[in-house]
């Protein structure tokens, strides 16, 4: 039979039982809709994580104190207080293809200014920190090497701190007090948003790490070293060199540090959201299969109901293949129709979720294409058995069927 007439016949057969076709398609609609929504939510989460990873900066390598197995990135964070500013200096001085290094000391402190107070992150960093993190300043400037050397009491603050302590004025030139020491504000950072681990990166006061260690926290070790390599292709080599250097500096002691490239951090961080996407997709996929069984069920009913029609067609010269195609096309049309509506509904549901829950939702073209193709495949898979049953009917038996 010509293809156009096959389609026409199939559409007519579906229209003949509009209500039934709709209900059958509903199974697929719900299945595909669920797949699209779930995968969109999963993808949204993944994209957010990726954006956060990118916000770490470019070609970043981080050195954490303590030796811990891969994956358990936060496990022993800061637990082995052995990383020193000298380690950072050595990396800068001796490792090739390193553009910048910033030691980092982290702490939380009560900060006072303007008669207001706020509990925030007070981090000690090197002067290159803003550059490494690709973090622009909206006003003022980052502190300098000189400030680090002289343990200056200067700071650069994030947007959240500005909002909390200087709601209606320009903070530049004013001072805030940390542990009763006045720090002059010399710069305000651009908005950075939430970090990989859900903390507000703009809720921060950054001071020279030397000032932090001597004046604020009185610590001798640092929390982390941030390193920027000169190019993405250098990352692995630089990482290896850093490991070698630090091992050598420890003169045979157990390695008490961990070096991670940005990619490794990203991989660990996106793992969860990837697993989530897969899990949500799988659950939604089950409903798609249930929808497919619905199609099979209705197609079997349809074959039985139309036994006589099949008999007529066979008697008049249809091959088994013609009948098979006819019913298969019907099943595919039914499921693809459901698939297209399901995609529309799924996109709508994703938008609603992101609108009302504020979740990041990302409808990817590939998930749409895959969902539609998969629903058509469901039609083929679940339509095949009924269609073959129709094709194998004996013409006389079919004609005699009441």
């Amino acid at each position: 039979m010509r293809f156009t007439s096959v389609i026409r016949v199939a559409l007519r057969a579906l229209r003949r039982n509009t209500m039934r076709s709709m209900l059958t398609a509903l199974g697929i609609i719900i299945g595909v809709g669920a797949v699209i929504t779930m995968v969109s939510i999963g993808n949204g989460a993944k994209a957010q994580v990726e954006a956060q990873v990118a916000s770490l900066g470019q070609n970043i390598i981080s050195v954490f104190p303590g030796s811990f197995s891969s994956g358990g990135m936060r496990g022993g964070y800061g637990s082995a207080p052995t990383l020193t500013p000298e380690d950072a200096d050595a990396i800068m001085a001796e490792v090739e293809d390193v553009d910048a290094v910033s030691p980092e000391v982290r702490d939380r402190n009560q900060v006072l200014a303007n008669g207001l107070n706020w509990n925030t992150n007070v981090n000690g960093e090197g002067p290159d920190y803003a550059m490494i993190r690709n973090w622009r300043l909206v006003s003022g400037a980052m502190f300098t090497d000189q400030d680090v050397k002289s343990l200056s009491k200067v700071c650069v603050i994030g947007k959240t701190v500005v909002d909390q302590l200087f709601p209606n004025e320009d903070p530049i030139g004013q001072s805030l007090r940390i542990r009763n020491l006045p720090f002059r504000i010399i710069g305000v950072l651009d908005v950075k948003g939430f970090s990989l681990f859900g903390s507000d990166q703009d809720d921060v006061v950054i001071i020279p790490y030397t000032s932090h260690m001597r004046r604020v926290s009185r610590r001798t070790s640092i929390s982390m070293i941030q390193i920027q390599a000169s190019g993405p292709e250098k990352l692995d080599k630089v990482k290896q060199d850093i490991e070698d250097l630090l091992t050598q500096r420890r003169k045979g002691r157990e390695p008490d540090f961990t070096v991670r490239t940005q990619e490794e951090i990203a991989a660990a961080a996106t793992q969860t959201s990837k697993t989530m996407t897969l899990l949500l997709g799988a659950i939604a996929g089950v409903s798609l299969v249930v929808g497919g069984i619905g199609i099979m069920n209705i197609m079997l009913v349809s074959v039985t109901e139309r036994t006589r029609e099949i008999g007529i067609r066979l008697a008049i010269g249809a091959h088994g293949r013609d009948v098979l195609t006819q019913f298969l096309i019907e099943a595919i049309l039914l499921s693809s129709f459901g698939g297209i509506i399901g995609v529309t509904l799924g996109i709508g549901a994703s938008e609603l979720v992101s609108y009302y829950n504020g979740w990041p939702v990302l409808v990817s073209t590939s998930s749409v294409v895959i969902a539609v193709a998969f629903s058509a495949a469901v039609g083929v898979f679940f339509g095949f058995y009924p269609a073959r049953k129709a094709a194998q009917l004996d013409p006389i038996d079919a004609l005699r069927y009441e």
Partner: protein
Amino acid sequence: MAPVVHIADIHKIYESGEVPVHAVRGVSLDIHKGEFVALMGASGSGKSTLMNLLGCLDRPTRGTYLLDGIDIDKLDRNELADLRNQKLGFVFQGFNLLARTTALENVELPMLYGRHRRHSSAEVRDRAMHCLDIVGLSDRSDHFPNQLSGGQQQRVAIARGLVNQPHVLLADEPTGNLDSRTSIEVMGVFQKLNEQGITIVMVTHELDIARFCKRNLILRDGVVVRDEPTHDRSIAEEALGLLHQAEAAAKLTHAPAA
């Protein structure tokens, strides 16, 4: 000239039930082009079974069947389907039109399969229209079966049977579901087609319907017990005229306009 249908000592035994049923027990028959055969017999005598064999819808248990010189026994399922499509036309007792499908599309149906599938849709349409015209229903082409009377439905079915220019038109009790007047009308269509050279084999158990044919075969218990030309053949046009006069006399219809 070689016969269109040649069957020799054909048997059909149904094995499906508990006891095998020997429905056709050795029928030999030649039917030539242009014949108009009535197959008669009591219910259960094997008429439909023989028709199914002739129509290549079923295979004989024993015996040979040559349709147009082709040995049916050597063909597979698809080749049989093609043969039915090209050489045979079917008319059934229950019309067997596709529901919710217009008369025209029903007639187009055989052209959607077999070697005709390559015809353009305009060509298909034209040929279907032409066949509807032959049976006098071209003005009803867009009607659905449930909008047509029984006689009209059967004429659509005949048009469908004709559309691939078959060598033989097979009809199993084509008037079985029709009243006597429409039966005669349908027989008129058959006679007209037969005059144009189409070979027709039909089953009927009504003697007066069989008299519209040219040759009468009588089947009893699966065997042909009589095979003779029709005596005193009826002509549908005359029969209709007589019927009309009788109805007019009984005031059922208007008298024919002067």
